[in-house]
């Protein structure tokens, strides 16, 4: 009979009989110093890296802040305010220049007495975009009709003018700045979505010739740079039309951008169409729906919902790319800045950089906002998928 000792296992050589000494408390696991150690100085190479990056930031950030804010000139009527020799102090960004020219940057040469029409258009645009992008907005179907049918027509009447209802016509040659940047992007999105859907459907069609035509169109346009499409629209469009018919200088790039954006949109929509399960198509067909009804009521609503982030990303790309209309002489925001910065009235060394900073601010706010929105939608859609 084995004798059991009081501590079980005490007679076994490999079992520790005595509890080991407690470990020293962990040096620091929380608090700012522990955080610093873990995230910035976890090893010697890491610490060197941290100091290198800090040095780099020290090299970039203080001069930038000094230029943009501390040394900046906020008020002034002409270049005298922004020249070091005249102002008698170091001069950073010349915001007075932007303040002075903000009307030109926003409306271009649009007649001052008619600028309320552009303001109204901005407001209508904001309503349309808000309605489309706010996923829980009431009656989004009405919103779509507003944005894709009513709004374009209303914009055309409002911006180009219509004598019969008392709106003086304004030639597009006078449009400029943010107005043109927005017009080009909105035309791009409003036209590219329907055409892109048609092209995507065509590319997935069973009819060989329809498919071939769509594939060739999409791949050719996606294979060439936007500039070549714009130059093509600018120089070749007048050639292809009967003699005597002239195309508006602003309409040409609009056509180019619409063609270009449609090809990219088609590929985004195609991704959505492919993601809709086959059962949905088969279910629709078994209910006796024809091709167009099946697409319109069953497939497209699901496909488009999936690709909202893709559509927004395409739009961000389009919005940035509209700056290329600059090349063919259309006065968009970048072109108005280029024109204003070489104006002798504001000839001062920092004026160019200020103009670029203003453009950068405008584009960054718009694009960053849209990309955050697209991320939010993506997360929301993913939440729906997780259930």
């Amino acid at each position, binding site marked *: 009979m084995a004798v059991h000792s009081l501590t079980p296992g005490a007679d076994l050589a490999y079992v520790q009989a005595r509890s080991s000494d407690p470990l020293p408390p962990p040096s620091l696991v929380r608090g700012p110093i522990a955080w610093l150690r873990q995230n910035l100085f976890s090893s010697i190479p890491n610490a060197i890296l941290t100091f290198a990056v800090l040095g780099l930031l020290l090299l970039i950030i203080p001069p930038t802040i000094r230029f943009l804010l501390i040394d900046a000139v906020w008020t002034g009527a002409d270049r005298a305010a922004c020249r070091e020799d005249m102002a008698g102090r170091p001069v950073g960004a010349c915001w007075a220049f932007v303040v002075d020219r903000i009307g030109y940057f926003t409306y271009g040469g649009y007649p001052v007495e008619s600028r309320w029409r552009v303001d109204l258009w901005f407001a209508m645009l904001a309503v349309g975009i808000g309605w489309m992008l706010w996923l829980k907005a009431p009656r989004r179907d009405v919103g779509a009709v507003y944005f894709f049918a009513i709004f374009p027509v209303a914009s055309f009447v409002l911006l180009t003018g219509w004598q019969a209802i008392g709106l003086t016509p304004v030639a597009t040659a006078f449009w400029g700045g943010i107005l043109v940047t927005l017009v080009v992007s909105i035309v791009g999105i409003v036209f590219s979505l329907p055409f892109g859907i048609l092209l995507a459907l065509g590319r997935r069609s069973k009819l060989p010739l329809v498919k071939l035509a769509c594939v060739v169109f999409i791949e050719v346009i996606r294979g060439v740079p936007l500039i*070549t499409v714009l130059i093509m629209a600018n120089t070749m469009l007048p050639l292809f039309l009967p003699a005597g018919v002239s195309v508006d200088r602003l309409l040409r790039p609009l056509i180019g951008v619409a063609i270009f954006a449609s090809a990219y949109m088609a590929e985004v929509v195609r991704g959505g169409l492919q993601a809709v399960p086959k059962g949905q198509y088969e279910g629709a067909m078994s209910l006796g729906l024809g091709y167009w009804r099946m697409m319109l009521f069953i497939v497209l609503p699901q496909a488009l919902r999936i690709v909202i982030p893709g559509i927004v990303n395409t739009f961000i790309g389009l919005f940035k790319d509209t700056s290329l209309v600059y090349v063919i002489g259309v006065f968009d925001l970048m072109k108005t800045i280029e024109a204003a910065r070489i104006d002798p009235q504001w000839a001062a060394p920092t004026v160019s950089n200020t103009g670029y900073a203003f453009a950068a601010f405008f584009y960054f706010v718009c694009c960053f906002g849209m990309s955050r929105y697209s991320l939010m939608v993506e997360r929301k859609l993913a939440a729906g998928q997780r259930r």
Partner: protein
Amino acid sequence: MSTIASRPPAKASLVNDPKVRGIVYQVVLVAVLVALVWAAATNAIDNLRAAKIASGFGFLESTSGFDIGQTLIPYSATSTYGRAFLVGLLNTLLVAAIGIVLATFLGFVVGVARLSSNWIVARVATVYVELIRNLPLLLQLLFWYIAVLRALPEPRASLNAGIGVFLNNRGLYMPRPIVAPDSWLLMASLAIGVVAAIAYSVHARRKQAATGEQSPTGRAALGFVVGLPLLVWLLLALLGTNPISFELPQQTRFNLNGGLQVFPEFVALTLGLTIYTAAFIAEIVRAGILAVSRGQTEAANALGLRSGPTLKLVVIPQAMRVIIPPLTSQYLNLTKNSSLAVVIGYPDLVQVFMGTVLNQTGQAIECVAITMAVYLTISIVTATVMNDYNRRKALVER
């Protein structure tokens, strides 16, 4: 009784027959397209005749009469338009090739930095990516060209980086390598080195497959490719002939003479394209690395692989499968974006051919068609190569 089975299928009306409908749709589509093209062509012929503009590609043979700032091949105002086209094409390819190499390097560094455990490194990388991706490339090019490079000092006050590198508002000046006649020995030794390195790595792989023994392939390759030419160079130098010497730019009173001058337009375009594309590549690299599941790293660690081999043999090969396809489309984007050269006056294909040549000759259709065909060819060739690569690298599911 089975009357149902034997009944002939109900004769549908011809209007509802999907086959007939399909044919009708396609005939209508073709008819519309042909009509459009025909109308455009006849209008174009009429308009060209009215404007007295020649058509056809004969103009490629005639004298261009304009100069180009940066030419990789001999070119002057007496050269032909065809030659100008070639100059533009080479300039596009040059900036695209250099941009792709630099953007890949920067993009991988930033992509890995975004995943760094070092908080500040990850943050700086994120800010870089978000800032650059959300600004138009055109704005960035103008910034680099006008705000940075044009603002550099005059040639007489050039920034001197030492070792014969100068920077001023006329560009970047570097030592120009001068190749002596007997440098073929050097080239030959380089070629021999490359062949030897390849042969050695093949041998090492066979040996590993047969015996499991590993050989220091990387070090050996470095020795063959770098060491051998270096040795030959030293020998030649000892014999008194220097195969490659450098001509340094000389600072004179108003300008710099000699050396290799890189034009500011080229510097700005390369810089802008590199920084812009690298931000997109960084996102692709980050997504690729995140796509390799943690289990892979853990399994490699469990097998006793250290962090270096884990990265090299397990993570990167799997990440590359995710990274390569979008990376290729970024390369294509970079090549297409190089056409923004026209904004800062770098003589690329679009600037030379769709700009100057088109304006001089007025032959819009030919110029646009040729330029588009070049970009399209680049795209299609790349896409074909990539599809082939994807087919070989795709996961083989059993």
